[in-house]
Structures are given as C-alpha cells and as structure tokens.
C-alpha cells in the first residue's frame, strides 16, 4: 500500500511517499527560507505563489526518487489546516486533482496531528498513551495522545508561540531570519545566567504557556541599555532568552507527565530541532525516569513524511475526504481537563 503526501501549510513545499505505513520511499522538502529571508519573515502571497511553482516538480521528483509511478499510488493525503489559507489551498487543490485524476482516495490531515505522529517514522516508537509537546513557529501546546488520531489538548500558548517569540526577538535584535536558529547559534557562545529574564506561567497551575511577556522583557532590557548608551551583550542575551523558553517548556511538560501519570514524552514541531531543548529534556528524562522520544530534526520541521503517517492511519480506518474538502486557518482541539 503506497501513499503520497503533500504538505504546504506554511513556507515549505513538501512531498513524501510512504509504503505500508513505515517505509519512507521519498521525503522531499523545498524550503522557501532563502526567499523569505530578504523580507525578514514569511510573506503569505509570495509563499503561495512559490508553492504553486514547486508543487508539480517536487511531486515528480518524489515519484522518481521512490521509483514508483502515479499508477502505483493507492491514496493521496494532504494537510488542510491549520496554516496559511493561501498556502494550504495550493496543496489541497493539487491533491484533489491528483485523487480525482487517478481515481484514488483523498485523505485530509491535520498539521498538528501529523507533527505528533512524526515520531512513528523512527525505529523507537512510543506506546499509547503519551504526552506530546508540540513547539513550532505557529503553535506551542501540550497534548495527551490516546491513539494515532485521538489526542486531547492539555494546554497551549495564550499569546505568542515559542518559535514566534524566537523570530520576534531575533528581529528586534536585528539578527535576521530564521530567528530561532540564529539565536541558538549565538546562545552557544553566551552565558545564560547573566541576564535575569522571567519564566512566564511557571507560577501558575495548568499547562498553558505565554511568551509575549518574555519578548517584552527582552524589549525592556534592550531599551534600557540603549538609553544608557551601553552595547547589548548579544550572546548572553540570546543564551538567557533561549534558556528561559526551554525551561518553561520543560517544566510544563514535566507537570503534564506527572498529572497524566504518563512515562512517555514525545517532542514535535520545528522548535523540537532546537539543540538546547533536546539536551535539556534528555537530561530530565534520565533524572526523572521517563522515556523521551525525539524525532530526527528532518521530521520535526515541516515535512510531508509525517503527513503520510497520519494519512496511512486514516486510510486504515477508511476516513476519506470528499472533493469539496475545505481548508482551515486555526486549530480547534478537544480539551482534557485534569
């Protein structure tokens, strides 16, 4: 059984081909990073135009790489939300045309569901139920995952996503795009304990996050130094900021494990590629005796392989979409109250 997956929810155009739910025959991602770097962020209209240009060649390339023809594909799955509407529409329209033309089932996948399932592309797979920490440019949330397609929201950000805070702080410091990676690189040479920054939400119960106040604390710190005519200790500030974000993510994830009485934590989303976050959670896992599952960075950032995993599970359950499938910008999750 071979599934072809398309992902265009943000600024990456991706296509993957997965056999029998576990053998990844092709996994291609065309990043628009270079294009958006010039603007210091993603430009939605440009993003969707670029998706349109790339989606056909990347699909042909994936088929070639997988050494299969369109006739071998049993189903096509596609991310239909959450994300940028203009970008999602390109992938969904393309997938519909493919499904209609080949007379094969169309499957709709939720981007967050796909991120959670990225870990099933690895050899080491978590048993259900597990706790998933999804951290990306647009999302920061903790889920209790009961089954492949059944997961419940424990808490999420009340304002900015963690990745967004990274990008905004980078822009504030004039560091360019993509902010997260630049900050992490600078942080490696800095001392994280010299500049006191807040740990938002750690004083509050529950599993919600808030990163807007942390961003404002960085703004205030920078303004204060500027007023005094002092230079900004870039490395130390990046290190302090990164440590603050990572600590909040870690503490809330640990609290979620304990509240759900769960011993398995899965990390997902683009920020899951962050070295400091991975290292910190690894150390905690040893100390606190829980199992940590870290998908490789290529499966953490946006990709279509994770969408294929999600699509495969839906295929097994016969959950197909019709050709009037719509896209959605914002996620709505079922909540779990503890």
């Amino acid at each position, binding site marked *: 059984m071979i599934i072809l997956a398309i992902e265009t929810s943000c600024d990456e155009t991706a296509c993957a081909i997965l056999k029998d739910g576990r053998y990844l025959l092709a996994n291609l991602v065309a990043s628009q990073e270079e294009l958006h770097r010039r603007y210091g962020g993603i430009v939605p*209209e440009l993003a969707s135009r670029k998706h349109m240009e790339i989606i056909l060649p990347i699909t042909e390339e994936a088929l070639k790489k997988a050494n299969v023809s369109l006739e071998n594909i049993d189903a096509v799955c596609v991310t239909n939300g959450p994300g*940028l509407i203009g970008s999602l529409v390109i992938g969904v329209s393309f997938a519909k045309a493919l499904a209609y033309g080949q007379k094969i089932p169309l499957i709709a996948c939720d981007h967050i569901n796909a991120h959670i399932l990225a870990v099933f592309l690895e050899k080491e797979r978590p048993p259900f139920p597990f706790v998933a920490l999804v951290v990306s440019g647009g999302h920061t949330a903790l889920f209790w995952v009961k089954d492949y397609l059944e997961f419940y929201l424990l808490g999420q950000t009340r304002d900015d996503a963690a990745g*967004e805070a990274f990008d905004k702080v980078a822009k504030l410091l004039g560091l360019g795009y993509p902010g997260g990676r630049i900050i992490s690189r600078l942080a490696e040479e800095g001392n994280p304990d010299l500049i006191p920054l807040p740990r938002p939400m750690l004083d509050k119960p529950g599993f919600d996050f808030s990163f807007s106040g942390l*961003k404002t604390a960085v703004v205030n710190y920078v303004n204060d130094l500027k007023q005094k005519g002092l230079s900004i200790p870039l490395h130390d500030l990046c290190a302090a900021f990164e440590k603050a974000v990572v600590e909040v993510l870690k503490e809330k994830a640990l609290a979620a494990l304990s509240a759900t009485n769960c011993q398995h934590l899965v990390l997902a989303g683009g920020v899951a590629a962050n070295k400091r976050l991975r290292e910190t959670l690894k150390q905690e896992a040893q100390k606190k005796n829980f199992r940590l599952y870290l998908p490789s960075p290529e499966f953490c950032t946006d990709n279509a392989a994770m969408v294929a995993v999600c699509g495969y599970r839906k295929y097994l359950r016969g959950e197909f979409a019709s050709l009037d499938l719509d896209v959605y910008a914002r996620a709505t999750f079922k909540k779990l109250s503890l």
Partner: protein
Amino acid sequence: MEVFKTKSPEETEQLAEKLGKRLACGDIILLFGDLGAGKTTFVKGLARGLGVPEDYYVQSPTFAIINEYPGRIPLYHVDLYRLEPEDVYDLGLEELAEQGVLVIEWSERLPFSFDKAIKVYFEILDAQERKIIIDIDI
C-alpha cells in the same frame, strides 16, 4: 483624541475592554506601536469587551495573519507584521469589516486608509508603563 497611561498589561487590557463594550459591527481599529508595546494585550481586552468567551485565547495572529473570535459581534484580528504593503490588498479587509469588528496590528503597513477608523497608538514609557493614545474619527 484621548491620552491614557497604563501601569501594567492588566490595565491595558481593562482600558481596551471598556472600548470593546462600546464597539459596533463595522468598527475598524488600527493599532500602531513597536514590538512589546501592548498591541496583542489590547486586543485581548477588546475581545473581552465584545463578549468573546474567557477560555477562547486571543493568540498572536502573526503566524496565521487573520484570527477570528466569536463575540456578540465577530472580532477579526489581523496582523500585518509579516506582510508587504502590496500583499494587504489580497486580505479583503473591507469585507471583513462589514461582518464584524476589525482590529489591525502593525497598521503602519497599511497601503491605504479607511474612511473611518479608531486609531490607537502605543508608546513604551518604561518596563511596565505604556502611553496609549486613542483617536476616534467622527
């Protein structure tokens, strides 16, 4: 034009909540100010004033560009932070304004002006304090 000083994010939210209670369908609110000046906090207050449920988080729309919240009137929360001015035409902002209350962060990037809008300017005074100027076109 009215000038306010708020001493905390909570006060900024309360000020906006009062404004939110008086808003009607078709109102357009343009927000101007730097990163961390309190724009999203202000929109949280507007949402409360418009009766958006407490558990419905007003998240930053920087990623999604447009967020919609269900209140006594729908609230459309737009962020132009990542857009080039020419991209703004594609958002259909005028149509959104006809269906509810439209609030726009980073209005500096608007390539056109609205006939009638409430303009709100944010200025960072110190770590906690903000100057907020509310300018209503009549």
